[in-house]
């Protein structure tokens, strides 16, 4: 991952860990190990706000930033797409297994059990 991506990630981690909105200086303060310039942190926070991952609000003369959604909400968004559960079929992702119905899943589970029983009885019978 490039340096910018890594910084975005570190800054989002800070925002996710803190429930209240943070100023740029507070965010820098939590990343002391990295020794970042104030302007760098500000630029990355701006980028995150443009992408919709961070929200910013005026507080006197300073901007305060917070995460737009929780980390869990974003993981859920990823997984809903990964599992083809958004109802919008498009070829954006290539899934190892496309969506499977409950009945299909039961049939596959039975097939797996049958295969494993068969394999235990005669391991040499497998092709490949």
């Amino acid at each position, binding site marked *: 991952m490039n340096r910018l991506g890594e910084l975005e990630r570190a800054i989002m981690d800070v925002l996710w860990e803190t429930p209240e909105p943070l100023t740029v200086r507070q965010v820098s303060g939590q990343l002391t190990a990295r020794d970042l310039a104030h302007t760098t942190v500000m630029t990355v926070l701006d980028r995150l706000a443009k992408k919709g991952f961070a929200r910013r609000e005026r507080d006197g003369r300073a901007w305060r930033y917070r995460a737009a959604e929780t980390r869990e909400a974003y993981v859920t968004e990823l997984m809903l797409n990964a599992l083809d559960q958004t109802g919008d079929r498009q070829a954006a992702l*290539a899934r190892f297994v496309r969506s499977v119905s409950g009945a299909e899943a039961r049939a596959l589970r039975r097939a797996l059990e049958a295969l494993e029983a068969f394999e235990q009885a005669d391991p040499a019978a*497998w092709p490949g």
Partner: protein
Amino acid sequence: MFPAVLILAAVAAGCVPAASALASARWPGRSPAAAILLWQAIGLGWGLAAVGALAGLGAGRGQAGGGHAGVVRAALEVASRAVRGTAFRARAAGLLVDLRLFFVAAGLVLLLLLCWVLVAAFTAVLRARRRQRDLLSLLAHGDPKVPGALVVDHPAAAAYCVPGLRSRIVISAGTLKLLDQAELAAVLAHERAHLRERHDLVLLPFTALLRAFRWSAVARRAESAVALLVEMLADDHALRHRPARELATALLRVGAAGSRVPSGALAADGGEVAVRVARLLRPAPGLSAPALALVCCTAGLLVAVPAAFLFISF
């Protein structure tokens, strides 16, 4: 002019039963690449023939001049009448002209629609992939068990790739727990084949067509058939590096873990996954050389015939 229009119309109409027949045929599983070629030819041939037949009907013969000029003149007349608000007014004398204008307009609309759905589907896909990559760069992490892939911490079993110039392979923590090392390697080999061969670009036009013709059973069957064929291609590639057993059990485990779609009209026999597993464990020989040649010739004719008639008539 008329025979050309008739032939184009016949090709366009014939593509629909041909697609249905191909969707229910059994041989595509034996040579997925050849079957995909035939699907592409049916799609392209249908588009060319349908647009060409409508344009040809509109251009007519004789007075309007036929050919390019005929279509262009008719299209201009459609536009000018539309502007003056008298388009398609069926007076006794103007009926024939109006009917021809209607066909040209229909041909133009179909052509624009086909181009538009492709562009729209492609931009939607690009946007969705950028969002995926952005989210992954914030949330996912590497794992020594799946070199070259990203891991998302979620208990559900998912494995997929984000195709494109900056591609990603993604495995959920649930899948990592569910599969053993050999099965994971088989999954990675399968996903890498998708990325390397850009199978997403093969599927895209069929997804776009389905989005444009949601009501069409043929479009839905074509999309499902091509999606399954593309998976088979990737399975076959994975088999070059990994034994069939690992890929088969990986498919069964991920499929069995993934029961989130309420079962309704879907098949209860294990569906696509069962078809793929059966194919891995009991491989059928590929099509013979003559059969492959026949498929390729059919595909070539399906595109060449409408293209030639379009060229000759206009």
